[in-house]
């Protein structure tokens, strides 16, 4: 170990140098994918919008798109760096997938995100041998299916009937898994199976079965489903008939399946919704392009106040969703004990908000929203594809049910008394420590994110009208947290079960909106302290975003200073003209 005295002339630095290597690597990877995909608007581009729409019409994944991602070895982004892959940060994974989702949600899901969902179980609880084996498969470009779902049981997966009966030397698999992406071509399956007849939450296990090791006479792929969205995805099912797998297939310990699933979900639920921002970005961009070009009442649609406000609101929705997504994905690293709530809230709120955003945008687009080809055809595809993110793998009610049992505890122990989150939670470009898979827990009783909102009530305001607006809206949000606290304490025991009354679900909705407000404030405070992004540092967007969230909560906040809308509108246009992403990263795009 070197010390100052051992190295003459060496000086101890005042603070460690900022680690910019992670940010540089993320930017390079995103830029590489943008470059490979190229201009979506170019009709000659084999992975341009026109060709991707044609693949969707044919119910196929774009072959050129899959080749492109093979060449880029996108599957390496799902493999932890210590196993030879590129996965170091969950927020970066979300960011890297955006160029794919920007163009085609089906390609993002079908090429690989479901492989990531399967793999997280193994990264979290697998043996060293399983981790290495799965890493080899993924680095070689293979798909892995996540096979949890059985149609009859939905998200009530504790009632799943798929069996893995212990037998000498391993397990015997029996039953069906339905609506499984890539089942027909995956090299391996992560299977959620009952390993004990007893009722309750210690009777299931996760198994990783490799296709080539299975007796082909004892398992088959079920017929493909046709779907309203992500038509290119190959979604089918699996049926096993007393099919043997070796004991080494078990991931983690027997009976730990429910717990492992809930821990793995914390990573996947945090990461996935933010990827969809890519598709929402394209949709907004498409409608901005339409609004600038189309003439009505002797002016462009963009000059019609309602249309202009709708586009600004859509941009704000994207910033709100990205702020929440950022906080949740970085919480996996920084606040792993608290992630169960944040992950469920992101998976609940982000797909919901984006679906509403798409609806609002469709009104501006008018009749063109129905057209399936041409300049605006991508819009209807994204409208059909996006809901899969809220259906797939945890419905919004299931996410609310994850939060419900924690509300009373948070109300008693954390709100208005806990420490605020570290500033790094809200810094998109700051380095993070490794993913602490082993520290994810099912419930914590702490909530540093809302504590940051409470702390922001004491921020000095510089007196500009926009800054005053942020302050007033922050105080109102803190009042709302007080009401959520009171209502949470008043929940009856029965309202803290999966069969809770609708009021308990509504309470989770309000809490989710409040956490989104806390994330917006956190991002803006961090950007002001950092100063390198003038737009994010500006109070205008934060005031406008908080205003939108306050209205979502049913509040009637005072009108914003005119400067807020003006600033947000200018940014919508700037990013359109300069081909920059509509999210926290302001990423240069290929078109």
């Amino acid at each position: 170990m070197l010390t100052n005295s051992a190295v003459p002339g060496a000086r101890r630095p005042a603070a460690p140098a900022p680690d910019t290597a992670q940010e540089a690597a993320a930017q390079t990877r995103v830029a590489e994918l943008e470059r490979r995909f190229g201009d979506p608007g170019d009709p000659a581009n084999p992975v341009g919008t026109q060709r991707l729409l044609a693949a969707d019409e044919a119910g196929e994944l774009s072959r050129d798109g899959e080749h492109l991602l093979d060449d880029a070895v996108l599957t390496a982004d799902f493999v932890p760096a210590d196993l030879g892959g590129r996965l170091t940060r969950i927020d970066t994974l979300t960011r890297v997938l955006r160029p794919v989702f920007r163009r085609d949600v089906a390609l993002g899901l079908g090429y690989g995100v479901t492989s990531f969902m399967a793999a997280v179980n193994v990264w979290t609880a697998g043996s060293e041998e399983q981790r290495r084996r799965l890493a080899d498969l993924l680095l070689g470009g293979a798909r892995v299916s996540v096979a949890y779902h059985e149609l009859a049981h939905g998200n009530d997966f504790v009632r799943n009937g798929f069996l893995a009966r212990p037998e000498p030397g391993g397990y015997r698999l029996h039953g069906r898994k339905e609506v499984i992406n890539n089942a027909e071509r995956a090299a391996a399956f992560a299977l959620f199976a009952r390993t004990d007849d007893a009722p309750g939450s210690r009777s299931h296990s996760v198994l990783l079965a490799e296709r080539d090791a299975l007796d082909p006479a004892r398992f088959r792929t079920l017929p493909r489903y046709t779907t309203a969205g992500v038509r290119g995805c190959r979604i089918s099912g699996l049926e096993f008939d007393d099919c043997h797998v070796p004991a080494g297939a078990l991931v983690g310990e027997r009976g730990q399946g429910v717990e492992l699933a809930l821990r793995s979900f914390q990573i996947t639920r945090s990461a996935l919704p933010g990827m969809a921002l890519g598709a929402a970005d394209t949709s907004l961009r498409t409608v901005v392009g339409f609004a600038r070009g189309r003439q009505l009442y002797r002016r462009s649609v963009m000059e019609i106040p309602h249309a202009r406000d709708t586009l600004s609101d859509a941009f704000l929705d994207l910033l709100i969703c990205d702020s929440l997504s950022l906080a949740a994905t970085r919480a996996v690293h920084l606040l792993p004990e608290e992630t169960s709530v944040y992950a469920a809230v992101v998976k609940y709120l982000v797909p919901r908000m984006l679906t509403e955003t798409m609806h609002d945008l469709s009104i501006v687009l008018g009749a063109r929203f129905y057209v399936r080809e041409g300049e605006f055809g991508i819009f209807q595809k994204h409208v059909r594809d996006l809901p899969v993110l809220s259906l797939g793998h945890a419905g919004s009610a299931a996410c609310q049910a994850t939060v419900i049992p924690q509300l009373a505890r948070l109300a008693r122990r954390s709100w208005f008394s806990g420490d605020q989150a570290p500033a790094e939670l809200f810094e998109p470009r700051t380095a993070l420590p490794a993913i602490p898979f082993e520290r994810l827990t099912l419930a914590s009783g702490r909530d540093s994110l809302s504590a940051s909102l409470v702390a922001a009530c004491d921020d000095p305001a510089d007196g500009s009208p926009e800054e005053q607006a942020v302050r007033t809206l922050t105080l109102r949000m803190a009042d709302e947290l007080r009401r959520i606290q009171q209502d949470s304490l008043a929940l009856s025991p029965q309202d803290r079960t999966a069969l809770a009354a609708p009021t308990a679900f509504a309470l989770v909705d309000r809490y989710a909106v409040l956490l989104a407000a806390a994330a917006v404030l956190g991002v803006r405070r961090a950007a002001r302290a950092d100063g390198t992004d003038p737009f994010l540092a500006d109070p205008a967007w934060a005031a406008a975003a908080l205003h939108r969230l306050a209205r979502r909560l049913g509040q009637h906040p005072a009108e914003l200073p005119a400067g807020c809308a003006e600033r947000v509108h200018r940014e919508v246009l700037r990013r359109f003209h300069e081909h920059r992403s509509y999210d926290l990263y302001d990423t240069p795009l290929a078109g």
Partner: protein
Amino acid sequence: MTVPTGRPATVREHTVETLSEWIANRISLYLKRPADEIASNVPLAEYGLDSVAALSLCGDIEEDFDLVLEPTVAWDYPTIDALAGYLVEELRATVGEA
């Protein structure tokens, strides 16, 4: 060192019997079902206590008995008997630390 408080005296009052009664009453609130209909040796999941309610129950125990537990405690001790037995041990251990 912790200054002795009144807690050990209250803790000493807890027995498997009192804890079983407390749990049965709590479960009856969750399930809207009379406490005396819930057998102490039958897994609570048989009565329809779902995994979400089991996590809520853990929070209630922590609150009323000032304990910190694994959130999955009601999964690992699935009957009233098992859970009461476990809690008595935990409460004794807490007294030992004080």
